[in-house]
Each structure stands twice: as structure tokens, then as C-alpha cells.
């Protein structure tokens, strides 16, 4: 093995006398907070938040300030490597040989040319979620190449299939957050917004702290009391994976026991009045095809566009052309009756009395009917918010769990109004200088809301038409899915054969994702990776996945890279609510070491060699919305910096190109109340009744009929149900803990465990690297904190680690901070630290949601002591 590492680095020789603060963007997690990096004599000696930006507001979390220890890690790759050992396996030495970039790119381009000529879909492009700057370059490469196969390893499959899709359908945004400035009562279901994680991480930390100081009550539903729950005014522990029934029981109390709903909101902003027939579909006007509502004014059914909202019936039974039908809200109301607090207590372990109290508090604090004047504008005021993220939606019931939670907001009209549950910036009036970046939700099919913008042009509503799969993840068949387990499931081949995938993937182009650790149990992923003919990976370090890679390309990290849109799209990680708009860039604060190259430039080089440069340029023109004179010419060779310059000038005018942004870092302009609180003045409805599910279900079944597959009814009802994860069905004696993972405040995915500062802090933290079990339960089994335990699933998957007995966890829960437990020598600091939770997860069709492909992320486990506390 002849790997040249950048050990005992030399300072850049011509850097003496440099002393500059470089405005740029963090990439320790996907929040991408704005930073300033201090370079003195060619060495980056400090990273601070950029106070000119609202994204981070001049502050950073522990991860962000530690970035330079990862940057200067001597284990960073500095030269392209090629394996010499054709055998691929976990722990099998690939026999790395250093090669030149020319050799590497020539070999890759030859294979890609062959594959594209055969079938471009054989290429799979995968990237990590952490570096948001990789989206445009890699998606454009994939689109230019002609493959639909884009993936983010565990991203989405674990965290976002439900959360992002439903935030999109209901809030026109990637995620939701309380309107911290005005909210008085927030209820979190398995989310930690404002507590050092996720979208708008550092900004939200400040906003949430201000809200606490102001007296906002925060109820946190979570099996473990750690981050958001530690700061909650009330922690509601529950059985792992049962957030949905809890929320639905609260909805039931609000609707059927209290009757405290926002009728004008439901009439005008939802499909609650749309009449539903016995076939569960809208009753439509024969002429226009529009859904009908019951007009109480003239006592007849009329198209929803013809009736004043206030006259639309929400309740009752009506007959249209002799057929009995009901307003969707009536059906929801009836449906909720099956979620009594008593029934929910049995499922969730949350006492029925508490469920009633929480629902009453939520509905009371909503102040239905009230308004508030903000910046001179009178807007609806509902100072309550129910939000959710990874914890509650990381289950097979992902969609319904998230929808049930959001219904709390919809019932009381607390969606995208002052104090309520806000999407992250669903509407923007555009940059005043150019009018560009303007977007706003609008009514689409059946009057339901279509997002103003999205993470690409694949909008969450209207949902795509199911089709026979052409995508290896089957997201084009199961159209509610975004990321998919079939990227590496144990029954991948069986699934592809069964559903008729017309080709098989051959080449994987990976950017920074450590797939072997990021999806599920490692042997399953390993087997999938072994089937590729060529795997190319852009990486900072050799890692577990490298054991399966053919060519490793040494990447530049975020302190060495360029990105023209670090705070865009605003629906992703820009702080919600009032304040400022802020567009920032990332730019290099340091030079590449050795032969490290920036991935975006490598992709352009590769595109040129494969002969798809015009196609990649066309994809960039389309996805960056470039217009003349900034559109890229098909055949001209651009550097990535030039493309960044074009995007910036395209958005902000000729005077605000890359040069301007390099100097100034960010451009800002004020928000107006009609942007964050767009809902009241926007003619678009959201579905409290998911009528389109009926159609999707029918179409999927029509396609899969010949494969002998029928999508289960209970996952395609227009109203939310509770379908427990497969792991909940394990009743084998001894397997009595629900193992779950959570995102630690000190780490992002798994790669930050290689950062020695973060690793050191995590070793000092009681929970970061341990397995947390309820103290009484543990003690009853003779366990002591510090004991070495084995955690084992029914099928024999297991992990080991030190136990931490805690009062702050549900008695049935077993909490592990995800994601740690590296074993590869390429990341020596990370190696052996913490616990590799994903080893406990089955990756197969049975454990994927038949609705949105989200994986079953809980595991029913047995705990055995295998060693004493040291």
C-alpha cells in the first residue's frame, strides 16, 4: 500500500504576510451556516460565524467551529487511488495504487462512454446530504448523462421521505418550524429544530432561545429527553415510533371533544369542504370536472370555484345525483373517532388524561380567530405549532405520522400564519434589484397548493403518475418515495425482477457518502456494492465504503471549494419567519493540498471527456434558471467559478458577480409580512383529505397486478392510519427494547467522528458514544452504567457498546447516537468510537414503507451483558 498522505505538511511557500477573513459557508452539516475563515500566512487559524448573514447570525455550533481540525487532518486523501486487488469485501485490502488524474479520468470516461451508449440509466449518482453544494453539479451531471438514478445514501430514506414531501404538500417547503418570534406553544414530535441540528441550525438556536426566554411553552414528544426535550417545558416520553396515533388522538380531542376548530380556515384553505363520494373520491362537476362542495347558501352542490368559502359545508351528508356524499372534513371527523385517547394510550403509553390536556392546551393557545399587526400589516395570529422531523417520520408509517401531526396545525388554522407552524420560506417576492428569485405557492390541480419552488423541478404536488419502474429505487412506481432502500436492499435483484426494471446498474459515481454505514446492515450493502462493475468515489478520507471502490478521487473540502448558492433554496436552510433574506456563497479559504481537486471542476472535466458537456450545461441552464446573457453555451468549456459567476449575475445583476460576492460574502434585503405569512393572501388549498391517494393506489396496483403485488390498502387510505413498523410485530421473549437512533449535537452523519476535537468532546459526553437504557429497567436486570453490552436483533444482527443507565429515556427505549462506530483504518480517530446503529436495520422490501419507501428505523432488540464496567 503506497498511499501518500499529507503528513507533516508544509505551509504554502508564497503565503507569508497573508492576513484575511474569508466570508464563506460551513459544511459540517447541511445547514450551511455562513462563516468567516481567518487565514494567516496561508494557514486557516479560526472559523467564526459571519455576522453579516442571517444564516447562522454570526454564530456556529460546536461542529462548525471545529471544522479546521477536519480540514487539516493528515489522513485526508491527496492523490487519486486505484485498487489493484479485484476482490472486494469488508476489510479486504484493495491494494491501493496512486495514479494520476489523467489516468483516473481517462479510465472513468471510457467506462462512462460505453455505459451511456448501452443505457445511460446504468449509472447511479450518489452524494452525501452534508455538502448541499454538491446537488447542482451532480444532478446536472446525472441529467446530462441521462440517468434518473440519483441517491443520497441514507438521506431521505431515513430522514426525509415523509417530512419533506408532506412539508411540501402542506407548507410548500422542505421542512417546518415554529414561528419562534410569535409562537407561544410549540409541540415537537421527534424533532430538534432550534437545538443544534438541521436546517437553519444556528439561526434557529438563537430564535428558539429567544422564544424560551419570552415564555414560549415547548412540549417535546420523544422517547429520550436529550436535546429539544431537555429544554422543553414538558417532556412527553412515548413508545418508539408511535407519534402518529398520539397526534391523531389529539386531533380527535380537538375536533370531537372540544369542537375547537378554525372553520373559516378549513373552508377557505383546505379541501375540507370538497364532497367525497362512496368511492372515496371527489364528487366532480360533470362539466368542469371541478370538485363539488355543498353551498349552504343555495342548498346545492356546486364547483368549489363558484362558492364563497363561508358558504361551504364542512359537515353533513348530502346527495348529489342520488349518490350520498360527505364533505371531506366530515369524513376526517368521523375517522378521528377511532383514535380515542384511551386507544392511543395503549399504543403510545402516554396517559389518556395527558393527551386530552395537551390537545386542550394546543387548541386553547391557538386563539382561533385572532389577528396581529406586524410591520403595519394585519395577519392571522395562531401562536401554536406542531412540528416533526426525523424521529417521528423515520418509520414505515412515515407519511401518516407526519400528516397526523400536521393536521393539528391545519385544524386550528396555524399553518403559515403569525405564531404558527411555518414552512421555511415558501414565498419570496424576489431580489428587489432584479425581480429574480421570485416564487409563491399557487393553486394547482383541484385547487390544491403547488410549491412555488422546490429542490429541483420534481414538485411534491401534484404527485407523479406511477409507472413501470425505470429507476432502480422504484420511486417512479411508489411515487410518494424520494430516497429508496432498493439502492442496496438484500432483495434488490428479486425486487427489480419482480417489478420489471429493464436494466441493471453498473457504475456508481459517489460523492462523499459512506454507503456501507449510512443505510442499514453492512453485509447487505456490501453485497449490493459488489455487484457494480465500477465504483468511483470523491472522498476526503478512505472509509468503510472504500473497500468496494475502484477509483478514489481526492476531494477538496469546504474550506477549499466554491459554491454560488450556499443559502439557496430558501425553502431548505434559510431561517423562516420575518427578518432578512440572505444569499451567500462558499469560497476557498485555503488551497488544495497535493493533488486534491474540487469536485465541481472534476465533473466538468469528466463531462467533457465523456462528450456530454453541452448536456451538462443545458441541465445547469435549466436547473439554475439561467437566462440570456448568462446562459451557458453548449460547447464552451467553463470553469466552475465561471458558472458560479454566471448564476450570481443572472440573479443579482451584472454588478454582483462572483468578484462582488467573494469580497462581500452575502447579499441581503428585508422580508415583508406577506412572505412568511403568505397563506392568508394566497388562493391555494391544502389537503386534509388525501383524495389523490386513491388514484395513486389504483394506478400502482394496475401496474403491479401482473407481478402479483398489491399495495396494501391501509397505506393508501386518504385519511391517516397507524401502521406500526414491522419491528413492532416482534413478540419473541427477551427482545423487549425498541432500539432507535438520534442525531447527536456533536456529530453530523458519521464523518465528524474523525474530527479529533468533536471526538474528544463526544468521549466526555455521557451519551454520545454509549447505549442509553432506562435506569430502573437496567438495574432490574443487574446492569450498571459502563457495562459492555451486546444489542441483538431477532435475526442475529448485533452491535456492542458501553451502556449508560439514564432516567431520561422511555423504559422500552434503547437510544444510540447515530452515526458512529467506524471500523476502517482510513479514519483512525473515528475508528472504534461509538456504536454503529444501522447494523441493526434490515434493508429489504418488507421493512420499507409501501407508501413512501421510508425504512423501518426501529429495531426490537435483546440486551446481554458481555463485560463489566471498567
Amino acid at each position, binding site marked *: 500500500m503506497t498511499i501518500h498522505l499529507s503528513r*507533516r505538511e508544509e505551509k504554502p511557500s508564497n503565503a507569508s504576510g497573508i492576513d484575511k477573513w474569508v466570508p464563506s459557508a460551513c459544511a459540517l452539516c447541511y445547514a450551511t451556516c455562513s462563516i468567516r475563515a481567518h487565514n494567516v*500566512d496561508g494557514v486557516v487559524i*479560526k472559523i467564526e460565524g459571519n455576522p453579516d448573514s442571517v444564516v447562522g447570525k454570526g454564530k456556529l455550533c460546536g461542529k462548525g467551529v471545529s471544522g479546521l481540525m477536519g480540514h*487539516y487532518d493528515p489522513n485526508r486523501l491527496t492523490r487519486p487511488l486505484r485498487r489493484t486487488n479485484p476482490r472486494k469485501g469488508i476489510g479486504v485490502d484493495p491494494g491501493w495504487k496512486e495514479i494520476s488524474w489523467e489516468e483516473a479520468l481517462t479510465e472513468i470516461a471510457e467506462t462512462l462512454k460505453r455505459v451511456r451508449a448501452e443505457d445511460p440509466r446504468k449509472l447511479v449518482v450518489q452524494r452525501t446530504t452534508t455538502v448541499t453544494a454538491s446537488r447542482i453539479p451532480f444532478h446536472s451531471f446525472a441529467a446530462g448523462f441521462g440517468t434518473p438514478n440519483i441517491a443520497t445514501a441514507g438521506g431521505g430514506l431515513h430522514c426525509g421521505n415523509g417530512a419533506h414531501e408532506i412539508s411540501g404538500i402542506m407548507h410548500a417547503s422542505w421542512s417546518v418550524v415554529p414561528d419562534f418570534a410569535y409562537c407561544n406553544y410549540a409541540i415537537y414530535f421527534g424533532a430538534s429544530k432550534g437545538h443544534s441540528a438541521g436546517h437553519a441550525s444556528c439561526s434557529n*438556536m438563537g430564535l*428558539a432561545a429567544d422564544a424560551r426566554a419570552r415564555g414560549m411553552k415547548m412540549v417535546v414528544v420523544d422517547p429520550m429527553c436529550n436535546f429539544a426535550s431537555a429544554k422543553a417545558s414538558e417532556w412527553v*416520553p412515548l413508545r418508539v415510533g408511535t407519534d402518529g396515533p398520539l397526534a391523531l388522538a389529539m386531533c380527535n380531542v380537538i375536533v370531537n371533544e372540544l369542537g375547537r376548530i378554525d372553520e373559516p380556515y378549513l373552508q377557505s384553505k383546505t379541501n375540507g369542504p370538497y364532497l367525497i363520494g362512496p368511492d372515496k373520491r371527489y364528487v366532480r362537476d360533470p362539466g368542469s370536472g371541478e370538485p363539488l362542495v355543498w353551498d349552504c347558501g343555495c342548498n346545492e352542490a356546486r364547483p368549489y370555484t363558484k362558492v364563497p368559502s363561508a358558504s361551504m359545508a364542512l359537515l353533513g351528508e348530502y346527495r348529489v345525483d342520488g349518490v350520498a356524499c360527505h364533505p371531506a372534513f366530515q369524513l376526517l371527523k368521523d375517522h378521528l373517532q377511532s383514535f380515542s385517547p384511551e386507544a392511543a394510550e395503549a399504543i403510545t403509553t402516554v396517559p389518556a388524561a395527558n393527551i386530552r390536556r395537551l390537545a386542550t392546551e394546543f387548541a386553547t393557545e391557538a386563539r382561533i380567530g385572532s389577528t396581529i399587526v406586524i410591520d403595519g400589516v394585519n395577519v392571522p395570529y395562531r401562536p401554536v405549532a406542531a412540528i416533526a422531523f426525523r424521529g417521528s417520520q423515520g418509520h414505515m408509517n412515515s407519511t401518516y405520522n407526519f400528516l397526523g401531526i400536521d393536521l393539528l396545525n391545519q385544524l386550528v388554522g396555524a399553518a403559515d400564519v403569525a405564531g404558527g407552524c411555518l414552512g421555511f420560506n415558501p414565498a419570496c417576492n424576489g431580489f428587489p434589484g432584479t425581480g429574480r428569485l421570485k416564487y409563491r405557492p399557487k393553486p394547482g390541480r383541484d385547487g390544491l397548493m403547488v410549491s412555488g419552488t422546490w429542490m429541483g423541478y420534481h414538485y411534491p404536488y401534484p404527485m407523479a403518475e406511477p409507472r413501470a419502474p425505470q429507476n432502480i429505487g422504484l420511486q417512479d412506481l411508489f411515487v410518494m418515495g424520494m430516497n429508496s432502500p432498493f439502492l442496496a436492499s438484500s432483495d434488490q435483484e428479486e425486487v427489480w425482477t419482480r417489478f420489471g426494471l429493464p436494466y441493471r446498474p453498473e457504475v456508481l459515481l459517489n460523492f462523499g457518502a459512506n454507503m456501507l454505514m449510512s443505510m442499514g446492515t453492512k453485509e447487505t450493502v456490501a453485497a449490493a456494492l459488489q455487484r457494480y462493475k465500477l465504483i468511483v468515489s470523491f472522498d476526503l478520507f478512505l472509509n468503510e465504503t472504500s473497500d468496494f471502490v475502484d477509483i478514489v478521487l481526492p476531494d477538496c473540502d469546504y474550506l477549499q471549494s466554491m459554491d454560488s448558492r450556499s443559502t439557496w433554496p430558501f425553502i431548505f436552510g434559510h431561517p423562516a419567519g420575518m427578518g432578512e433574506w440572505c444569499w451567500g456563497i462558499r469560497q476557498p479559504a485555503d488551497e488544495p493540498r497535493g493533488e486534491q481537486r474540487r469536485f465541481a471542476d472534476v465533473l466538468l472535466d469528466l463531462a467533457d471527456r465523456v462528450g456530454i458537456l453541452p448536456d451538462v450545461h443545458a441541465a445547469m441552464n435549466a436547473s439554475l434558471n439561467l437566462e440570456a446573457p448568462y446562459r451557458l453555451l453548449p460547447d464552451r468549456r467553463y470553469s466552475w467559478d465561471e458558472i458560479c459567476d454566471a448564476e450570481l449575475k443572472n440573479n443579482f445583476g451584472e454588478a454582483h458577480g462572483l468578484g462582488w460576492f467573494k469580497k462581500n460574502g452575502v447579499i441581503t434585503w428585508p422580508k415583508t409580512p406577506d412572505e412568511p405569512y403568505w397563506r392568508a393572501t394566497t388562493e391555494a388549498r391544502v389537503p386534509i383529505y388525501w383524495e389523490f391517494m386513491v388514484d395513486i393506489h389504483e394506478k400502482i396496483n394496475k401496474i403491479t397486478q401482473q407481478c402479483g403485488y398489491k399495495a396494501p390498502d391501509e397505506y393508501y387510505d386518504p385519511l391517516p392510519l397507524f401502521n406500526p413498523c414491522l419491528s413492532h410485530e416482534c413478540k419473541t421473549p427477551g427482545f423487549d427494547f425498541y432500539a432507535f437512533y438520534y442525531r447527536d449535537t456533536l456529530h453530523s452523519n458519521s464523518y465528524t467522528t474523525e474530527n*479529533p476535537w468533536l471526538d474528544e468532546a463526544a468521549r466526555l459526553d455521557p451519551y454520545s458514544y454509549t447505549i442509553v437504557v432506562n435506569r430502573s429497567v437496567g438495574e432490574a436486570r443487574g446492569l450498571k452504567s459502563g457495562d459492555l453490552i451486546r444489542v441483538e436483533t431477532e435475526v442475529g444482527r448485533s452491535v456492542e457498546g458501553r451502556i449508560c443507565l439514564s432516567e431520561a429515556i422511555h423504559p422500552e427505549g434503547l437510544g444510540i447516537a447515530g452515526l458512529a462506530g467506524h471500523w476502517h483504518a482510513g479514519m483512525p480517530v473515528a475508528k472504534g468510537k461509538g456504536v454503529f446503529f444501522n447494523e441493526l436495520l434490515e434493508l429489504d422490501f418488507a421493512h420499507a414503507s409501501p407508501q413512501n419507501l421510508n425504512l423501518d428505523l426501529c429495531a426490537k432488540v435483546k440486551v446481554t451483558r458481555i463485560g463489566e464496567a471498567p
Partner: protein
Amino acid sequence: MRLGMVIDLKRCIACYGCQLSCKAEHGTPPGVFFARVLKREEGRYPTVRQLFLPVLCNHCDDAPCVEVCPTEASHHAPHGVVDIDHDKCVGCRACMMACPYSNRYFHDERQFYFPESGPTLYEAARSERHPERVVMKCNFCAERRADGKLPACVANCAAGARYFGDLHDPNSEVSRLIKDRGGFTLHPEAGTGPAVYYLAP
């Protein structure tokens, strides 16, 4: 004028931004954190909560470390800041024994985070300043203050949980917070007169 800090535990979320921005500012060796975050559980399930307690040198008025220092290396710098003159420190560690808060570290020998490859460029640039065989600790970021900046942990706190100012000025933000919200110090029974105050969670 007496410089002091107020830490609002209601705001603190234990993101470790203080602990690590302090490390980044000072380039401290492995194992040394001038600022730290401690976690503790209070109560029994399910009526339990987690308490987060960020700690650092308390810059005591009646500082036991200053008192026991045989060489006057530990001393009161202007505005009540307790600092260590490394030219005078002989590394006897009496101050570490005397400090009721365990916020002092002995730098026995130069160590680096990647021991096999020696100092990174960052460590080479930032850790030279720390002499060996002496005691080290927080000095409320003397260098940053000389440049007119707030201490790193204060400037970086994303939750806005840290305040810094003059405890002797009754109108300063820190004085008002202590008065209005009943600011308290750690181990008051030790009678050291800390300059770091906490507001209840």
C-alpha cells in the same frame, strides 16, 4: 471595574459551541478545555430533566489559586481577571489543588491531535504559544479583549446564553441580569467570590 460573565441556563442548549470555539481560539492541547459543558439528569423518570452546565474559570475575587501560588504566577490582572504569568509558573500545581472548580490544566508536554504525524498546520500556528510544564486556563480571552472583542465563547454562543461585562457597574447588562433573575454562582460555600454567574434554567 470587574469583568464577569453571566450564563443563562434557560437559553443554553449544550451545543458545545463554547467548549469548541474556545479550543479553536486558543489551540489548546488534547485533553484541555478552558470552557466545558457538563450534563446532569435531575429527577426520576418520567419527571426528569437534563441540566446543562457550561463551566470555565470563575475568575474569583478571593481566588484560592492566587493565594496558594508560590511564585505569584497566578495573579489578578486588571479588572479582576485571574491570569497566569507563564514566565513565573513553575508547574507546582498547587493552584490546581486549590481550585474548587477544577478549571485549571497542567500542560506537561506538547501533544498533538494526530500524534503520528506531528502538529497540523493549525496546531503549529496556534499551539506554539503554550509553554510546557506550566498550568494553563481561561483568561477571559485577554488577546481578544485587547482587540476590542468579546471572549470567544460569548461572541459565538448561538443561543445567546452568555453575557459579559462589568459586575461593578449596577447598570451593566450582567449586573441587571444577576439582580433581576437571581443570578447565582457555583460553590458559594467556598467563599471565593466567582465572577461567573448563572441564571436558572
